[in-house]
């Protein structure tokens, strides 16, 4: 090779000549460039050994690498001699610890605060609504719908439920009360709707009459309006004389204590058509009748005899959910929480 030189310049050539005098020069790349190339090649080997890239039996397992002297990444449950070894799991747990450290001051406060106190704190509310969104999507949205917009039942139970599988949580109509503590109680203790079937106590005609009367209360804007409407007078009589008022009240506005529905507003828990109302009255809710409507909210907070939480959600999570649901827009102001503000007035005098 070395005796092949270009005659004009003296630059070494590869020795291959074609078209009489066309030859390939063999100029070396610059020295600094060659140094860079060599250094990169050496670094590749070093990198592969340090990081878990090549299975090495000497490292204990095959996927640890030999580690980096001076690197100290302790991880609970991992042998201390592996502290100098990097793994993706370690990085993950470090990131998680970092996140937990940010959340800790909030979580610690929520643990000892009542839902109403959390609601009064803007910053905590902001925090809670964000983590509440995740909890809600994981646990509640299956029945209550994404964002609490309700889910229509379909398939096997479609006829029986006829309407929402669980109540819409965005409106201001609450069967069991819309104050923050009521919501907390509903989630932790669960709820079971109950309405007896009237197919034996009332005749078909009576049920039809009272269904029309109930529908009129909602559509015409209250019980007074329906009472004045002679078209539904038969239903009014049935409503007053049978056991309807026992649960729904003489004013038909329902009782939060027992979860009976307000019949005068525009919101229907089940189907609001005449046929739907007739079915609800005839077969009841959770009455045991195979045709009855089903309305069950499971118990979300369960404790064993020692008082340890055994359910999927603990008190903190349920507090978050209560605040999150309250903030949907239908939450009712708590008079008790507002009371101290009133008392503060004479003190200021």
């Amino acid at each position: 090779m070395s005796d092949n030189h270009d005659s004009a310049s003296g630059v070494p050539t590869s020795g291959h000549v074609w078209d009489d005098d066309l030859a390939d020069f063999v100029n070396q790349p610059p020295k600094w460039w060659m140094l860079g190339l060599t250094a990169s090649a050496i670094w590749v080997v070093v990198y592969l050994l340090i990081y878990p890239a090549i299975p090495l039996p000497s490292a204990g397992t095959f996927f640890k690498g030999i580690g980096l002297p001076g690197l100290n990444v302790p991880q609970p449950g991992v042998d201390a001699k592996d502290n100098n070894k990097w793994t993706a799991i370690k990085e993950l747990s470090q990131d998680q610890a970092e996140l937990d450290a940010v959340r800790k001051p909030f979580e610690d406060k929520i643990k000892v605060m009542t839902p109403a106190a959390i609601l009064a704190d803007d910053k905590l509310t902001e925090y809670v609504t964000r983590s509440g969104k995740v909890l809600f999507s994981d646990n509640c949205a299956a029945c209550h719908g994404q964002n609490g917009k309700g889910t229509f039942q379909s398939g096997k139970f479609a006829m029986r439920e006829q309407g929402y599988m669980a109540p819409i949580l965005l409106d201001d109509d609450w069967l069991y009360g819309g104050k923050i503590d009521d919501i907390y109680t509903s989630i932790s203790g669960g709820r079971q709707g109950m309405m007896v079937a009237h197919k034996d106590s009332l005749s078909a005609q009576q049920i039809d009459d009272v269904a029309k009367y109930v529908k009129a209360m909602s559509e015409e804007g209250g019980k007074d309006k329906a009472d004045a409407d002679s078209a539904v007078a038969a239903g009014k009589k049935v409503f007053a004389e049978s056991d309807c008022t026992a649960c729904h009240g003489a004013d038909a506005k329902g009782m939060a204590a027992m979860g009976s529905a307000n019949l005068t507003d525009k919101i229907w828990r089940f189907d609001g058509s005449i046929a739907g109302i007739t079915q609800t009255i005839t077969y009841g809710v959770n009455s045991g009748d195979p045709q009855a409507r089903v309305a069950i909210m499971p118990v979300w907070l369960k404790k064993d005899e020692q008082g340890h939480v055994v359910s999927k959600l603990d008190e903190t999570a349920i507090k978050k959910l209560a605040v999150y649901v309250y903030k949907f827009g239908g939450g009712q102001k708590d008079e008790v929480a507002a009371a101290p503000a009133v008392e503060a007035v004479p003190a200021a005098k």
Partner: protein
Amino acid sequence: MSEATNKQLDNSSNVTDIYSEHIEWATNLGEKTIHAKRAPGRFRTLKYFTESLWLIFFFGAYLRWNGKQAVLLDVNNRQFHIFNITILPQDIWMVSLLLLLMAMTLFAVTSVASRVFCGYFCFQTAWVDLFTWIEEKIEGNPNKRHKLDAAPLSLHKIRVKATKHLIWFAIAIFTGISFTVWFVDAHSYWDDLLHFHLSAIEKATLFAFTMGTYVLAGFLREQTCLWLCPYARIQAVMADSQTILPAYDLQRGEPRGKLQKGKVIEKQGDCIDCFQCVQVCPTGVDIRDGQQLGCITCGLCLDACDSVMDKIGRPRGLIRYASLDELEGRSVKKIYQHPRTFIYVGILLLALSGIIYGLTHLGNLTLRVAPERQPLYVTMSDGSIQNKYTFKVLNKTDKDVEVKVSAEGGIPGQILVDADKPQLIHHGKAAGFTVFVKAPGANVHEEVTKIEFRVVNILNPAMSAEYDTVFNGPEDEHGHEHK
């Protein structure tokens, strides 16, 4: 022999001639350090002035304005402070216009007057100039430097070289510091630096820029221009035969020949082959070979040649700023006769007016409102329709403000639930909150009704922002009855 064969032979000898030319193409791979001579002259003085603009880089960050750093590119907190102006990420589109402006200025200048940036303004040129100036002060003129480089290792050599490298390194460190202080508060940075409290990213920046300066300006020098810089490579497509650049007047200079005392050699050109133009060149090119990659158009060879022409009593300008057209005797067009001038100026003006528009329309509050989509609306127990809106208010001022929400349009009788509560927006931050709008069901006739929200600073009602969005309602079955 036929005429055709003759011609073929002539051609083949021409082709072979091309190969001998490659001696002229000798590539500079940095094996030999270039020690350029420093000669006074017009362009040398100009270069000192243009390069001293970099003093702004070193000391500009210490300028204070209203008690804060005047120019602070606070990347950590995602905001740029330039005197009274604060630029948040939302306005960062202006930076792309600024880049366009700078790129176009570079292109326009290159097409008219070649690599003016390289020769007079480039940091590589400026720092190399500074480094070699120090080298000359310590090691002496280029001859002495060549001798010192070749000399065997001695105590004297070590002392001289070490002094030079120490000063170089000090400048490199100061360069690294000066770069960093544009991005963090300069005063607290020095405090942190002297207490060794720099953050990891500050350390990395300081290290990278110190080493970058030391290696690029101290060792790689013209190799950077030849092999690293992309601009040096693309300039060829921007320059053409109308571009003025330092050029050797071939007609006047050739045939070149050494000057001999007391003799006038017939037919000899003005070039006396004194190599002064090569000696002063910081990138070591011979300008008499024509325009080439290594030429950063700094004009130092013009100074050198002019001084020689003065000595031998010839007119100046054997090497001068000239276009190829001028040298070859073609007609020379004026700047405004080139269509490209207008294209460049057009793009420059567009970018500039965009930046001016952006800076004058920064505003102080920005409002974005996102209507809830799932579900679009909620029917309340009294039959009213409620919409939920997520507000995002950005406060671009440097003070916290409290805003109130109001709405125009929408549904008659609508109520903004809880909107009387003032919302605090911290300065330079965006705050989000929720507003419910409740409207009587009887009044909602359309699926979609236009509504405009407005946030107003409670203390200064002149400061406000609006956003147009919609109020969603149910499909109205009795729409025709209401009409």
